[in-house]
């Protein structure tokens, strides 16, 4: 990797100030950033390491909401007993990211900020109607994920926590790439008091998206049968060596039905 200046601030405000520099990149777990820098696909002039900032980790459940600190590691999301009671689907999802070593270091905030089109958390945020809280504002998941590796975050804006409303039932089903463990297709289904929400990762050319036709059908009848016959258009779906758009469209339906069956 190319040389950079290393900063290890100890507060959110100091980190935000350093990250305001257009040359700077913020590092949470570094599980994506460091490999990208090693391949010289990224060459930031400065790294702002958030691992010295305290108070950004932990899972709390209160008032029908789960709040997860941005620096909470995937392993800690996966093993949180409180989260498993409140939103088991989210605890399960965290256990399917990468491998045990990656889960010990990678963070929910880093994953959400990176918005990899095949990452898992964006699907959970969209389906559960999460709010992304930053050092300066609150952003609805709907407005946060703006495209491939693109988010509503401004230069220097830091995610501090993510707030998930507790659904009545939810499940995430992931068809994994056997080598990378990223989702070829991942579908998060959530039944909430305001209706059913279905979000898909891994399949879309512009990242995570919701499936309105599934949501309407499932809001009327929350059963796998309700969506079995719905054919999805292949417009905007990825085609690559792992799966073409037709296969991905098919997988979205299969994974959505499995998620409905598994929802709890």
């Amino acid at each position, binding site marked *: *990797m190319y*040389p*950079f*200046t*290393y900063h*290890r601030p100890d507060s959110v405000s100091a980190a935000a100030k350093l990250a305001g520099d257009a040359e700077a990149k913020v*590092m949470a777990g*570094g*599980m994506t950033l*460091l*490999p990208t820098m*090693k391949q010289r696909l990224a060459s930031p002039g400065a*790294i702002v*390491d958030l*691992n010295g900032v305290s108070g950004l980790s932990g899972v709390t459940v209160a008032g029908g909401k789960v709040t997860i600190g941005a620096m909470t590691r995937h*392993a800690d999301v996966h093993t949180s007993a409180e989260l498993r009671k409140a939103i088991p689907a989210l605890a399960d999802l965290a256990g399917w990211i*990468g*491998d*045990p*070593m*990656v889960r*010990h*270091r990678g963070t929910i905030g880093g994953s959400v900020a990176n918005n990899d089109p095949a990452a898992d958390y964006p699907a959970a945020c969209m389906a559960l109607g999460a709010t992304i809280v930053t050092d300066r504002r609150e952003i609805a998941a709907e407005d946060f994920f703006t495209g491939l590796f693109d988010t509503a975050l401004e230069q220097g804006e830091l995610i501090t926590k993510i707030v998930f409303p507790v659904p009545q039932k939810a499940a995430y089903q992931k068809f994994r790439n056997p*080598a990378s*463990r990223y989702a070829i297709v991942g579908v998060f289904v959530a039944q909430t008091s305001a209706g059913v929400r279905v979000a898909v990762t891994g399949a879309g050319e512009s990242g995570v998206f919701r499936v309105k036709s599934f949501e309407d059908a499932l809001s009327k009848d929350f059963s796998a049968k309700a969506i079995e016959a719905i054919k999805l258009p292949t417009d905007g779906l990825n085609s690559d060596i792992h799966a073409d758009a037709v296969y991905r469209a098919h997988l979205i339906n299969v994974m959505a039905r499995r998620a409905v069956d598994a929802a709890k």
Partner: protein
Amino acid sequence: MATVSMSVNGKLVSRDIDPRTLLVDFLREHLRLTGTHVGCDTTQCGCCTVHVDGKAMKSCTLLAIGLEGAQITTIEGLAKGQELHPMQAAFREHHGLQCGFCTPGMIMAAVDMVNRKGNHLDDQTIREELEGNICRCTGYHNIVKAIHSGAEAMGAAK
């Protein structure tokens, strides 16, 4: 250059390093602890697995400079003098290796697995937990056997 200090296998070390230095290079090049291997260098194979503050991580994907004050354990830190750690002994007993390149990472991952999942591991758990460690020789059968037996032995040694 910047100075970083951390504890490696119980010994406090301090070095002036380029901020780009990965933990695995810090261990191998600066401390000459060459038991930790670089396999893929892309966070996939797990040969570089070490314990950072008691948790298994891939040292090819950590900046050494970011680990000020951390407690690192490498494969060199497991044995007590001439006496192998029970997991090391189990890999030898069950021949859980052929070329041996992935073995340090396998053993560090296995010890971490036992720390999290306990001493009685079934084959499916072991295989799922090993998804971040790649072996190109053995076909994994003897590795799974070794971890199963090493986990039990770690329980008995307590």
